[in-house]
Every structure is written in structure tokens, then in C-alpha cells.
């Protein structure tokens, strides 16, 4: 399809994508979902194990019906809540009260008062997601969810904590839920397509009401395991989608995007370009931009890219061993390995607390150590890209004086983003022989 733009529309799947999988030694079955939540629209994709493909969950017959407006509307004088276009419509008809921008509301832990009742952002997102998840449940006639990956533009620690609580309230077991960045979902979406589409660089333009984002990913094949490197760039050239309502505006938007293409794609060997977001329900308004893209490249146009990528990852997470031979380095993933030297089974060797490529939100780790003539904790930070090792020291000098080898410390590594690391060492004493003092030591540092 070189040099052409094509829609990735897929027919609506009728068969139940119910699979039986083995996870954590147990057999679980149910839907494997990717859910892209944005402030303007949400999208849901479901992995069909039968077809070994991802299907979008559509509200109607056409491709754009996969876009579910992220709004919640409470019908006046009733306990009924509506989502999506129907919610919009009823609110416009003054039949209910609507709340939108639910992700932003959750990010700032906001509230909304509807008919005199105060609702927290968590309450509202729970109501919204409950109804969103109802769509695939109804479509595939099964309530069980085997795995769900939520795709978000940005991964903020507070946002993820709140989303985790929302998922708890939805009855989704934490072991079956993941939160990943759009960047990562894009990367996995790209490598889940046929091999000839990601021989070299793969890029994507995501045009929404929230802005214009450029994504780029490549597979570094020289490393073992191979590295899936992806990045996102929020483009300043973003414009309001209302601009596309007039021919003059369309022309202006085309010029803006063409300039972006010149700047971002020049001198790069790009195999494929994806155009997604509600701004690209069609690319007819951007002929010049498309002409620039379709230059010895495969160009694809369509929706639910991030939701599809999330669904691919969700499916992969259900497998005993990953199908993807990659370490992913991107937004939301650690670029360095955190380790320290410790004696295990009589051998002094590095002990990894968090690996490069791990999801920072899930990478919290702890281990217990006995101090053998040590008064400083030396944490090793090894950059995956450069293999350079940096040592971070944490002094334990204030620990109570005890005979050698009679102090046990718990080392806890946690992250508040992919760059911000916190290491804590807590005195656990040595049983009743030398009780714990409760002292703890902390070091915060940045990794790149």
C-alpha cells in the first residue's frame, strides 16, 4: 500500500473473543481489552484469540463509531447515567447534567456537583468506565474480563493511583489491569503489524482536540534482547479542530501539518506513518501533507491505534511467555536498571531491584539484607542505552551500634515517574536479639 492512505477499518466482529488462558497458575477466561482513555474520546479494542486479531468495539456501523466521547450525563430526576454521544445529545436537549474532561478532573482530583450531590472524580470515572466496559461485555456476551490495558497519554503517579482505585471499585483485579502510555501502545501496535511495516522507523501523528502529538519508534536489532525505542513529542503547532470546518481553515491546517512533516520526517528512513485521532477521521482536507507522507512510505489512516496496541499488550500479558522479544524503552518505562551487590548463596553478585524496560508504576521492589561491615548502601544505576554505571550512595551511619551482621535492613525502591527514583532503607533489627529501631533512610534521585 506504499504511497497510499488507507483506512484501517475492520468489520465488526461477531464471535465471542473469549479465551481460556493460564495466568499465575490459574485458568482464567474472558475479554482481553485495550482501553484508550482521553479527555475528548475513549476507545475500546478487544483481542480475539480465535482470529488472533484485534477488533474495535463500535457503537455504530461506521469506523468513527469507535470514538466514545468521554462524557457522563445524569438524566434529570433519574438515577440513569449515560455516556458518549447519547449523553451529549440528552444534555444538549436539557434532559440531564453533563460532566466532561473526566481524565483532567481525575488528574486534579476534582469534584462535580450534580443535582445537589457532590461526586468525586473517582466516582464519575467509575460510573463512566463501568458503562464503557459494558459495551464489549454486551457485544461479546460475557462479563468476565481476563486482562485490560488502559492507554493514557501521560502517566502521572497520582492519576494512576486514582485510576487503580477506580479499577478496584469496578471489581477488576489489580493483577489483570495495566496502565500504559500512548507511546508504548503505539510501539506495540506497530510491531504487531506485518514485518515489512516496521523495517525502519515508524511514526504516527495523533490529532485530537487535546493537541497534536508526534510518535516515533524503532527496533534496535543489534541488541539482545532487541530494543523497542519509542518517543512522543507534543507539537506546538496544534490547532483547534474547529479550524477544519471551513475550506480556508482546512488549507491552513494542511500547511501547518506539511511544515511539521518537513521538519519531523526529513532525512529519516521511515517505513510507515500512521495518522490517528479524531482530526484524522479523514485526510481529504490535508492533500499536501498526505503527498509529503506518501513518499516511499506506507501510510495508514484510522482510529483506535492506541486501544489496539493496548489490546495486543493485554493479550501478550495473558501468555506464560511474551511473544515480543523486546525491551521497551519509552515513556512509562525505566531506561536504567537499579541494582546493588549482595551475597546470594555464598556469591557476591548484582541483584536487580528494577530492570530497564519495566513499567515504573509497577516496578516497586523491596528486599531484605543483612549488613556485613557496611555503613553505606551503594545503589547501581545502569543506563540501558549507554551501559554506563552510576553509583548512588545512601549513608546508614546513624543505625544503632550492633555487632557485625546483626542489622537487617529492608531496601525499598519506588518510582514516582520513569525518571524519579526513591530508595528507602528501613532498620528491621535482628529479631528479638537486636530489636528494630524503626529508623529509616531515604534518597531521591533522577535517572535518565
Amino acid at each position: 500500500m506504499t504511497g497510499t492512505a488507507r483506512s484501517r477499518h475492520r468489520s465488526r466482529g461477531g464471535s465471542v473473543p473469549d479465551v481460556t488462558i493460564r495466568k499465575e497458575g490459574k485458568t482464567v477466561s474472558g475479554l482481553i481489552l485495550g482501553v484508550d482513555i482521553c479527555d475528548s474520546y475513549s476507545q475500546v479494542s478487544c483481542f480475539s484469540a480465535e482470529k488472533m486479531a484485534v477488533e474495535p468495539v463500535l457503537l455504530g456501523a461506521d469506523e468513527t463509531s469507535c470514538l466514545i466521547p468521554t462524557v457522563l450525563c445524569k438524566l434529570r430526576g433519574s438515577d440513569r447515567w449515560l455516556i458518549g454521544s447519547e449523553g451529549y445529545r440528552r444534555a444538549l436537549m436539557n434532559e440531564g447534567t453533563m460532566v466532561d474532561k473526566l481524565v483532567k478532573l481525575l488528574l486534579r482530583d476534582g469534584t462535580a456537583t450534580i443535582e445537589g450531590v457532590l461526586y468525586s472524580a473517582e466516582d464519575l470515572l467509575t460510573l463512566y468506565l463501568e458503562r464503557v466496559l459494558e459495551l464489549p461485555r454486551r457485544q461479546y456476551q460475557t462479563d468476565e474480563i481476563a486482562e485490560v490495558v488502559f492507554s493514557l497519554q501521560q502517566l502521572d503517579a497520582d492519576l494512576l493511583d486514582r485510576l487503580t482505585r477506580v479499577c478496584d471499585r469496578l471489581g477488576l483485579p489489580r493483577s489483570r489491569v495495566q496502565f500504559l502510555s500512548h507511546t508504548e501502545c503505539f510501539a506495540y501496535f506497530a510491531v504487531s503489524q506485518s514485518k515489512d511495516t516496521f523495517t525502519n522507523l515508524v511514526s504516527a501523528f495523533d490529532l485530537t482536540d487535546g493537541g497534536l502529538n508526534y510518535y516515533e519508534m524503532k527496533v534496535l536489532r543489534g541488541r539482545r534482547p532487541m530494543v523497542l525505542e519509542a518517543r512522543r513529542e507534543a507539537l506546538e503547532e496544534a490547532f483547534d479542530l474547529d479550524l477544519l470546518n471551513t475550506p480556508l481553515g482546512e488549507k491552513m491546517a494542511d500547511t501547518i501539518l506539511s511544515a511539521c512533516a518537513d521538519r519531523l520526517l526529513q532525512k529519516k528512513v521511515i517505513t510507515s506513518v500512521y495518522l490517528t485521532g479524531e482530526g484524522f477521521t479523514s485526510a481529504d482536507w490535508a492533500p499536501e501533507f498526505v503527498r509529503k507522507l506518501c513518499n516511499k512510505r506506507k501510510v495508514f489512516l484510522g482510529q483506535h491505534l492506541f486501544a489496539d496496541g493496548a489490546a495486543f499488550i493485554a493479550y501478550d500479558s495473558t501468555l506464560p511467555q511474551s511473544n515480543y522479544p523486546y525491551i521497551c524503552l519509552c515513556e512509562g518505562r525505566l531506561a536504567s536498571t537499579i541494582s546493588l551487590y549482595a551475597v546470594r548463596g555464598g556469591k557476591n553478585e548484582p541483584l536487580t531491584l528494577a530492570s530497564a524496560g519495566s513499567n515504573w508504576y509497577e516496578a516497586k521492589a523491596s528486599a531484605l539484607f543483612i549488613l556485613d561491615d557496611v555503613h553505606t548502601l551503594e545503589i547501581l544505576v545502569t543506563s540501558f542505552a549507554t551501559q554506563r554505571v552510576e553509583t548512588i550512595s545512601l549513608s546508614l551511619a546513624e543505625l544503632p551500634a550492633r555487632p557485625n551482621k546483626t542489622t537487617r535492613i529492608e531496601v525499598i525502591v519506588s518510582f514516582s515517574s520513569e525518571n524519579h527514583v526513591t530508595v528507602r532503607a528501613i532498620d528491621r533489627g535482628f529479631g528479638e536479639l537486636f530489636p528494630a529501631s524503626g529508623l529509616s533512610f531515604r534518597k531521591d534521585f533522577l535517572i535518565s
Partner: protein
Amino acid sequence: MAGLILCQEVNVRSPYYVPELGVHLYTGEELSYFIFNHVLLIPDDFLEERLFVFLGELGYARLEERLRGYRGGDIYEVLPVILQEIRYYSSPELFRFDKTLETLRAMPEAERRKAKGDYLFGEGLYHYALREYEDILAMDAVKLGDANFTGQVWHNMGSVYASMEAVREAMRCYRRAYSLLHDEKILEEIYALCQLSAGVTLPEELKAEISPEQEEKFRRRFSERERQAVFEGKALEAAALRDRPPEERADAYARLLENWKNEYRRNQV
């Protein structure tokens, strides 16, 4: 080797209790520490069911099975096996431990028990120490060795009683020790005991043995030790708390008092 030793958090249902120390052991590392540092406290019947259950709960099933086979065997042969399996101590430390065991093994039983009694006394475990000394003195003369050794046992037993403020018992033991050793140091201890305890006087036969010069020397040293006493032991422990911030001081004193009470209770076994 300096560094960190990775260990596991294990929740045992049946921790191993060491009555002499009044503590429970919860991990293999704690058991190793106990064996390595308190080898004299290890009883002859160490290889018993509760140790096997404890090791089993810690996940040392192979060691447990091996030790069951050793039941009734030489305890000093078994201890290195336990330490090696748990791997808390390094090879040089294990080598040093083997040397300690060799020394203990070479000792006659009475001497080994005296070493244990002395160790228990040093740890403040007075009743356990007395039990050891009494058992030694109950041994037949052949096992007991010469009068010098017996005198030392009596002397140490006297010191234990003195530490417990059982003055009459202490006096009885010191007099037996002096009758065997005729050591001036014991005379001085008897003199000090009398000074410390109202209503206890120097026995007539000993009074005759102390020259005026000796008495003067004893008196001078006793006064010096009395002056020093406020800078050591429990007085020092209490004095150290004066440096704490005022808001923490009351709690610190309460904790210290509680520790002293526990120590006292432990010695009432």
C-alpha cells in the same frame, strides 16, 4: 567479605526459644548467630523436635532431615553442619568457629561446665550460672580435678551470689574459696562484701589474717571503687539518659526501668 547478604523474610509459626537469653529466634541467620556467639549456651539435648520443626518451617528441609539422623550424636559435630547450610557465616568465620569447638572439645567436662558457668555469669544469667557451678561441685573428686580448680568454682559462685545481693550465700562461697586458694584477692572481696552489707561482719578467723596494712589498702580501694561506681553499670545507663531531649526523657527512663525489671525477672527463674 564486606557487603550485603540477601535474606528472606520467613514467617515461622514456631520460633525457636532460647530460655537462657529469654528470646525467640525467627530466622536461620538468628539461629546461626546464636550458635556462633553463644555456643556455651547450647544444651546437650539441642537436637530435639522443636529445632527440627523450626528448621523445617524455615525451609531447610534437607538440613532438618540430616539432623534427625544425628540425634543423640556429638553436638559439636552437628553445629558446623548447621552453620554451613545456612551460609550466614563466611569460610574464615566458620574456620574460627571450628577452632573454638576444638578447644571446647579438648576441655575436661568440669572445665567446660565452668567455662559455661562463667559465660552465663558474664551474660548476667545468674541462676543458670549457679546451676552449672553447683553441678560441677557435685561431681566426684576425680572429675573435679585439683583444689585450685574447685576453689575457683567456689569463688565464682560467690561472685554470682554477690551480684544477686545474696550476701550470706556469697560469704559462704568466698570463705570456701579462700580456704582452698588463700588468695588475697578473695580476702579483699570478702572485706568489700562486709562494707556493702549492713549487719554482715568479717568472720573472726579471717579478721586475724588481714594485716593493718592490708586493711588500709582494702579500705582505700573500696572507697575508690565506690567513687567509680557512679560512672559504670546501671548508674551509667541512667546517667546517659540525662542527655536526651526533655520530651523524650520520661519515656527513656520508663523503658530503662522496664529493661531492669525484665532482667530481674529473668534471674528469678
